[in-house]
Every structure is written in structure tokens, then in C-alpha cells.
């Protein structure tokens, strides 16, 4: 078992290596607003920017001159010549106890994915982070779908928010979260809403801030669907990527397919837990906050276990603060979208049953 002090020392040395590399290699700086906050990305190789950061393109804010509250360095190890030192700390092979799965200290956080070749480092005190990719050419597609998500979850947790495993859609600046594990209908529900004219803020990961009432912020304009549900999304067919790869989920970037429907921030009005029921009409059933937390928290927390207690508390607050519904879905996506629109425009009659 790796000792904490040893891991911390190795990671501090690694941060120093990356800082030296940043000082001696050409980097381009790109400005973004993430959850409304100025962020600077320092990108070591043009190829990384082009291929890895398309999911956050709607957040680009090239003219922003406000001081960045986070500086994030993006490294392509193969092209930037920045390799990780040989260390037992970075020798994790599938089993977390064999090395560094994650490290969480007072200020420094790290998470290493050896098979994907991705190291995420975040220093809260320095407001600085590194996202190191062994080789962009072989980095799995899901990192393109949601780049530096571990850095984002540490960063938003430091600000009192959370990165949720949840979709988010809305109308006129107000939105709802769509919670549940993969395969539960989040993405299909979110895309059904996009087809019905909703704003899209997430199909998988969404940033929620610390405000009351809470606001959801787009993290990635990515939508991924199961291959067998592609027929339902014919309208966007030409925008789907990975269609020729059976081992990858088809995904599209919503700002390519529906650029006017990217919702950067949505004031949250409720949380919906979809259930594929093949009903004739979608039925919305109020559920208890405890039931929603059971649906929302385990996958959100366990995908990002180092966010821990603070993120869990924020999720519980959201479930207490917002009305929670189970959406027993119809097969007709227009009907699903109409039901969710009713939650956001309550002057319209709702098809609602009392909680059992």
C-alpha cells in the first residue's frame, strides 16, 4: 500500500515537472467561462485543442479579460514530450490498492486512469490543474466526450457545488435535472427535449452551483446514445460520431446539431427520474427526496469518489430543495417532452399522480 506522504511527494514532484514544462514549451492560452467563472486553458499542442476540447466549445470566451480563477494545463504526452516518471504511485493496474487510483490531500487531488493514459491533477490552493494525456491519438473517445471531468468535479466541489451524473434540459432559462444511471433513459429523454425545442445543458455530466435556488451549468455539449436507439434520432444522424465503431457509443455535439439550443445556465425547478415504461402517455409521479437521492448520489459519487462528503451534501440539498418526480415514459418522444415542459410551465395541466 502506498503511503500518503510518499504519494504526496511524488505528485508534488510531478506538478513541478509539469510547471517546468509549461515554462519552457510553447503553449496557447484559450479562455472559457465554466459555470460563469473565468477559466484559462493552457494547451501544449494544437492537436489536443482541436480533437479533445470540442465538447466545451460553447463555453469558449476568447475576448474574456477577467482574471482566470482556474488555470488548467492540457498535455499531450506524446507530442509535448512530457512523460510521467516511473513510480509505484502511478503503477495502478486495475486495482486501486495496487497504486494511485486517486489521491486527495488538503489541497492536492489526483486521479490516474492507467489504461486510458489519463492523469488529472488539481491544486486547490494554487487554483491550478493539469490534465495529462499519454497520447491524444490513443485517448479513448469518452475523454473527448467529457474532457478533464475529474478536475471539474474537484473545482466545483471547492466552490460548494457538484458535478452530477445527470442530464439537464430547460425552457426560457429554467430547467430540470434528469437523474439516473446509464441506460435509464437520460440521454434519450434529453434528446427528445432538444427535438421539441428545449435548451440542452447536459446528457450525462452537469455542473450545479452552490446557490439557492440552484443553477445548472453546461459542462459538455455532448450527447451519447445507445446504438439501438439511433433510429429515434434520425434528425441528427449526420452529426453522430463513432457510427463505424461498434465498441464506442454514438455521440454528437449539440452545438453542431442544434447550435441555438445549447443552454449554458438553467435555473433548476425540479429533478426527474426517468423510467422506461412504454406507456401510452408519460406520467409524472411525485417521489420523496430520499428516493431521488438514492437514484442520483451513488453513480455521481462513485464516479468521482474523491469529491466525497461535500458533493454528497450538495446532492442531498438539491433533493430536499427541488421537487422530485418519477417520469414513467411513453414511447413517443414528443409526449415525453410535452410532459417535462409541463413541469416548467405549470400553467399547463399536468398528468400527475400522488406519490404512493
Amino acid at each position, binding site marked *: 500500500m502506498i503511503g500518503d506522504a510518499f504519494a504526496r511527494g511524488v505528485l508534488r514532484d510531478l506538478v513541478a515537472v509539469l510547471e517546468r514544462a509549461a515554462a519552457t514549451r510553447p503553449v496557447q492560452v484559450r479562455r472559457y467561462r465554466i459555470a460563469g467563472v473565468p477559466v484559462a486553458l493552457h494547451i501544449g499542442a494544437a492537436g489536443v485543442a482541436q480533437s479533445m476540447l470540442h465538447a466545451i466549445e460553447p463555453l469558449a470566451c476568447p475576448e474574456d479579460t477577467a482574471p482566470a480563477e482556474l488555470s488548467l494545463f492540457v498535455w499531450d504526452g506524446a507530442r509535448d514530450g512530457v512523460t510521467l516518471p516511473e513510480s509505484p504511485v502511478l503503477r495502478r493496474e486495475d486495482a486501486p490498492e495496487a497504486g494511485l487510483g486517486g489521491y486527495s490531500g488538503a489541497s492536492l487531488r489526483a486521479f490516474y486512469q*492507467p489504461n486510458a493514459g489519463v492523469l488529472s491533477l488539481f491544486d486547490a490552493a494554487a487554483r491550478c490543474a493539469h490534465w495529462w494525456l499519454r497520447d491524444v491519438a490513443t485517448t479513448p473517445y469518452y475523454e473527448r466526450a467529457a474532457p478533464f471531468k475529474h478536475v471539474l468535479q474537484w473545482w466545483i466541489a471547492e466552490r460548494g457545488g457538484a458535478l452530477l451524473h445527470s442530464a439537464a434540459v430547460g425552457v426560457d432559462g429554467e430547467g430540470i435535472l434528469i437523474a439516473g444511471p446509464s441506460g435509464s433513459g437520460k440521454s434519450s429523454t434529453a434528446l427528445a427535449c432538444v427535438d421539441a425545442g428545449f435548451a440542452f445543458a447536459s446528457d450525462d455530466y452537469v455542473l450545479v452551483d452552490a446557490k439557492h435556488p440552484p443553477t445548472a451549468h453546461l459542462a459538455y455539449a455532448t450527447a451519447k446514445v445507445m446504438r439501438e436507439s439511433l433510429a429515434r434520432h434520425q434528425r441528427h444522424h449526420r452529426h453522430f460520431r463513432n457510427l463505424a465503431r461498434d465498441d464506442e457509443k454514438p455521440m454528437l455535439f449539440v452545438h453542431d446539431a442544434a447550435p441555438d439550443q445549447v443552454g449554458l445556465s438553467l435555473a433548476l425547478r425540479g429533478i426527474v427520474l426517468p423510467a422506461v415504461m412504454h406507456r401510452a402517455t408519460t406520467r409524472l409521479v411525485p417521489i420523496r427526496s430520499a428516493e431521488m437521492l438514492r437514484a442520483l448520489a451513488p453513480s455521481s459519487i462513485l464516479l468521482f469518489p474523491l469529491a*466525497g462528503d461535500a458533493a454528497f451534501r450538495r446532492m442531498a440539498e438539491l433533493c430536499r430543495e427541488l421537487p422530485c418526480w418519477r417520469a414513467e415514459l411513453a414511447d413517443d418522444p414528443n409526449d415525453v417532452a410535452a410532459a417535462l415542459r409541463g413541469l416548467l410551465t405549470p400553467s399547463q395541466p399536468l398528468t400527475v399522480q400522488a406519490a404512493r
Partner: protein
Amino acid sequence: MDTRRFELNSPKIIGEVIDGEVMIIDLVSGIYYNLTGTSAAAWPLLVAGLPLHAVVESVGASCEADPAVITADLAVFADRLIGESIVRELGPTAEPAAAAPRLPEATYTGFGINRYDDMRALLVVDPVHEVGEFGWPPPPASATTSQ
């Protein structure tokens, strides 16, 4: 008189009380739990370090149940929490025992714990999330309840 005292086994374990239930997540194993009824009501007292006999007193004052039954059930529950590494035992204290807090009146339901391990794959796979066409492999949902 059972004087054992406990605290939450943090940072490995996190817990939240919500809507009369308790949700507990083991960040190392990926197993999560929920408590309802009497076990949820007693949870804040347990993790606040009250000795078990004081928890028995509080629970007994809130419901119509035989204190001997509560004592036996709570001891089993505490052993289960220790066995699952949800709590750790505290040493004896020299401080005088505080008065047992009042709990809202409720029906005694025993000390059940629901255990779920359907999310463990999230912690033991790399890539972290997508490992197949349908997201992570969904193992058969398993939820067990023991009273």
C-alpha cells in the same frame, strides 16, 4: 449494560440523513446502504458517540417496544455496522453520560439495513465510466435487507 460507542468510519464512509432515511456510501468498496424507520432514527445518536445503552433509552422512550428486544436488536445492528466497516468503535470515555436525547414518537421497526452493490463496478474499472455499449456493465441488481 452495553457501553460501546461508535463514530462514522470517515473518510471512507459518508452518510446523509434525508426525509427520515439515512443514505450511506462506502467510497472504497462502492457499496451503499440505506436505513429507514427505527434504524434511521437511531443513526444520528449512534454516530454522535452515544453509548448503546443511551440509544436504547432514547429509542425505548419513542416507541412501545420491550427494552430487552431493543437492546438485543441494537447490539446486532451495531455488530453489522462494524462488520461492514460503516462505523468504528470509540474507546471508553470518562465524561459523564449525557441525557438521552428525545426521539419523535414512532412505531418500532427493528434495526434493518439495506445494502446495495450494483455500483461497485464504477470503482474497479478503468475507464472510469464507459466500459461497454451500455455504459458500465450493469451487474445484476442486488439489494438485501436484514432485520
